[in-house]
């Protein structure tokens, strides 16, 4: 992570904010992958901030969502400053043991807190950005304390050897599992793609809120599907990951670094075929699943995708009717 310590000019500020955005964007994804790989309702810890006992998996998801909100705050400010938000992602890791993922997450939090807190703003320059950065940094301090508590609790309770959910040994031969992985990948891509457009169109509050709603829907379905994958005997995959001899997975390309569509029309256009591809995948998957509860859940997802498609098509048609809309 590149350090930008002196913030004097707009370019310095954009550089700092983009370094932070790339980081927040990547870790929000990494934490959620770690959470979805962690056994549910098995690892509890006493949270020093919330003053109550929490499920480590659930709280890790919550921290991942905090990082998404940070990404949004950073991206919107970058746009307001006239910069171009960067969505390049760092390397992503998944360790076989849950505790090693939490160690990495804690280290990540410390690293970004240092980035934020060592940035020196010249007096009176960008006070609102300085305030935003400080506020975010104390969310990161909280996250670090929460991850530390999770690690300590696992050690104290002798559960430090708890393993992540293993991947299905014969996953490539199970068509239902393969299609669900494809769906998961698209849900994640769309969740992030919509978020990118929320940043792009943040000055237009009603469009921005519509896009945000769809992003959240994709996030919810990504979450539900992660649970369905576990029921089918598999675990969320990391895109383009390589596994070493110790079972550590690493991907240098876990997510797209570029999202097409720079203006309103081209952004809306690019979402329609992707929503369509997702619908086709759900339609292909549902007849292959025999468990009634799962098919009902998947049917609810499919129905909402159709709503997205209907809405997106009309957003595009309506945008095309208006001259001078960019």
């Amino acid at each position, binding site marked *: 992570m590149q350090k930008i310590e002196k913030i004097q000019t707009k370019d310095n500020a954009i550089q700092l904010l983009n370094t932070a955005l790339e980081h927040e964007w990547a870790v929000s994804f990494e934490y959620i992958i770690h959470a979805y790989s962690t056994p549910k309702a098995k690892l509890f810890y006493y949270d020093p901030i919330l003053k109550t006992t929490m499920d480590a998996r659930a709280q890790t998801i919550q921290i991942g969502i905090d990082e998404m909100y940070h990404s949004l705050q950073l991206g919107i400010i970058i746009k307001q400053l006239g910069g171009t938000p960067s969505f390049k992602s760092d390397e992503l890791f998944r360790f076989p043991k849950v505790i090693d993922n939490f160690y990495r997450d804690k280290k990540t939090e410390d690293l970004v807190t240092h980035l934020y807190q060592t940035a020196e703003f010249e007096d009176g320059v960008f006070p609102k950005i300085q305030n935003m950065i400080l506020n975010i940094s104390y969310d990161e301090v909280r996250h670090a304390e929460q991850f530390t508590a999770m690690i300590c609790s696992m050690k104290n309770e002798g559960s430090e050897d708890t393993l992540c959910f293993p991947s299905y040994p014969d996953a490539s031969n199970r068509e239902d599992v393969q299609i669900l992985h494809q769906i998961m990948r698209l849900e994640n891509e769309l969740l992030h793609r919509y978020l990118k457009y929320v940043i792009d169109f943040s000055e237009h509050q009603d469009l921005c809120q519509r896009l945000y709603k769809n992003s959240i829907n994709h996030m919810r379905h990504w979450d539900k599907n992660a649970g369905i994958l576990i029921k089918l005997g598999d675990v969320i995959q990391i895109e*383009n990951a390589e596994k070493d001899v110790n079972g550590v997975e690493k991907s240098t390309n876990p997510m797209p670094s570029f999202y097409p569509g720079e203006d309103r029309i081209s952004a809306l256009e690019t979402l329609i075929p992707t929503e369509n591809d997702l619908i086709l995948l759900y339609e292909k998957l549902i007849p292959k699943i025999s468990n009634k509860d799962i098919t009902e859940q998947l049917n609810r997802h499919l129905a909402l995708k159709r709503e997205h498609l209907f809405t997106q098509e009309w957003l595009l048609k309506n945008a095309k009717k208006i001259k001078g809309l960019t």
Partner: protein
Amino acid sequence: MKKITTNLDNFQYFYPYTVNIVGAQSGEQINYMACAWHSALSFDPPLFGVLISKKRLTHQIISQAREFTVNFIGFDQVKLSAQMGRISGHDKDKIKECQVELAPAKIIRSPILAQAYVCLENRLIDVRPYGDHDLFVGEVLAVHEDEGCFDLNGALDAAKIQPLLYLGSDLYITIAPESLKHVLPD
């Protein structure tokens, strides 16, 4: 005097174009096809686009896989290009039928073609409809190249590689290395 026509059946015959073999793997299904309509689209980020008819099986497989490889083959592979262009994956397993030698990619799951002198690994980032074809845009994640196929300046070494060029109407051609010129604007 130029001939002017409004019959646009062959408007696209400003060939030759290099031919590549483009495709992907989705689950157990693998399909590749010959493609002459393609282009690099951006340096940063590195983007590459291929145009594929909606009717092609490759269209369906890339849409599902969300990734694809682009494989440039030499003139010695002309038969392979003809087969991959004319046989439909809906009817036959082209990989078996045409004895395509696949090799693992470095980053993505879809394989590359071992016979190719240059292969691009792409993550699908956009699909746009243009008439009867869709433009598939990939973010290039890795490039494989045969040793020595490019010179020190990064240009294709015409003495070593005879790229396969398509002229339309099932006609193929390659370059004449003796025609090579290094030309500066002044």
